[in-house]
């Protein structure tokens, strides 16, 4: 059980290792706050969909499993979407269309199909939390890198907090714009994947 949790964070990291759910990972990580918000929304959906799918794994007919997964996932995504709109409107506006798009985040469908459908609920729960935290961490790191290099600030929360200036305020004007544009997302993701592989293989 412990393995299900820990593996999800690093060994089976959704972005770095499984390379699924890259679409939101590239799109929303223009700032650390956005990455964090998306990650937390994904944790919520992933945990609930994993547990439900795993509890119903003996009832769901094998040939109908994908539509059933989608119904379950989209239910939780819609719940998250409404709740964000009601209680955290600024974050909801920032994340925009990416919340509804969690439905087709292959990471969540992938975990339902690849893990929860074959494991008991408590394992599925741990896997959901682990994978979710791993996804949130990587989104937060990507957001941090892109926000600092691309805008010169860190942890800016629109309307709440102005953000830190890790390289001084002067850096804001000379920041590397490319990093918050789409190519910056690919560069960051490639860099992180490469670093991960490097440290993982160094021991051998």
């Amino acid at each position, binding site marked *: 059980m412990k393995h299900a949790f820990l593996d999800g964070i690093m060994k089976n990291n959704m972005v770095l290792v499984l390379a699924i759910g890259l679409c939101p990972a590239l799109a929303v990580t223009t700032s650390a706050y956005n990455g964090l918000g998306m990650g937390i929304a994904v944790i919520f959906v992933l945990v609930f969909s994993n547990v439900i799918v795993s509890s119903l794994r003996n009832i769901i007919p094998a040939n*109908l499993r994908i539509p*059933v997964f989608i119904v379950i996932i989209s239910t939780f995504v*819609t719940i998250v979407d409404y709740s964000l709109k009601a209680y955290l*409107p600024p974050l909801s506006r920032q994340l925009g269309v990416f919340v509804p798009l969690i439905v087709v985040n292959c990471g969540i469908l992938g975990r339902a199909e690849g893990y929860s459908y074959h494991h008991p609920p408590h394992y599925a729960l741990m896997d959901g939390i682990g994978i979710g935290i791993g996804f949130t961490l990587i989104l937060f790191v990507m957001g941090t890198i892109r926000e600092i290099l691309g805008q010169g600030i860190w942890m800016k929360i629109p309307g709440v907090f102005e953000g830190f200036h890790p390289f001084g305020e002067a850096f804001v004007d000379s920041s590397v714009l490319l990093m918050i544009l789409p190519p910056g997302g690919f560069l960051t993701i490639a860099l992180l994947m490469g670093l991960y592989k490097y440290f993982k293989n160094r021991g051998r």
Partner: protein
Amino acid sequence: MKNKVKSVSVLFIISVVSAFSLSFVYEKTKPIIEEGAKKQIEEALVEVFGDSTVQFETVKSDTLWKAYRGDTCVGIVYRYAKKGYSGTIRPIVGVDSTGRIIKVKFPKEGLTETPGLGMKITEEWFQEQFSGLCEDGIWLKKDKDSGKIDAITAATISSRAATSAIREGLTKYKTYLSGDLIKECKWYTDDIERLSGEKDLEEVIDDRLWKSGEQWLYLFYGEGFVSSVGVVVSVINDTIQGIHIQTPEEGMEETPGCGTMIADAAFEEKFIGVYINEIDELDHVSGATVSSDAVKKAIKEGYKELVKRSEK
């Protein structure tokens, strides 16, 4: 056959449970979401109108509001969309009863301009440029001479779209300002009104000479150090009753800190009660001799015109 029935019923039951839980969440969050959206619009309206004591009446949902104080319409707030560099730019604009912009705001929601470039239209300095402008000022400086808006470096398309959205919206919606309140909006409009004591004026020459009984008002320009300086003068029987010298905010372009000192109230006051023929004896503003002369010249030349007209 048995398998088929099982498949169908499982999917059916899951869908029903899902539908019920969704409708529950929807019912719970709907009022909060609507409340939030309404509050957000109200806050934006008050912000661009700069006055929380007025009542807003929706004319066109999410597009046009009329602002009322008591029964009088004191202005409008509108939104107008224009295609920017990527996606649409849709500013919220507050306009007072004379057709002058109070404040504009570019909401970040739904704005997809390039971060760090086009997105700079949401910065305070860019938005503030529009405050106090009338239609002919809402152009980029590089597009039209009367324009007062500095474009954002490397984001001309976004700046131009933002400016056009505000101007075209104003052209379209200003008809909603109650008819008699629309005045021609020029830098001296308010000053003419103030100097005349809000009496009804007879316009003798378009935009230059006005008359009300004994009182004459005229507008004249004198050549200053950098460019021309406008002066509005009110006279009764050759004596200056009131004067207003164009300020830098109104487009006077004399050297900041030197020539611009002629717009100080202290300099204007020196003229009050003085005979037109004696204004040469008044002291100059030190450090702004040429600009001071421009004012005096404008007063004298303008007066000559007045005399010519009044003799006819």
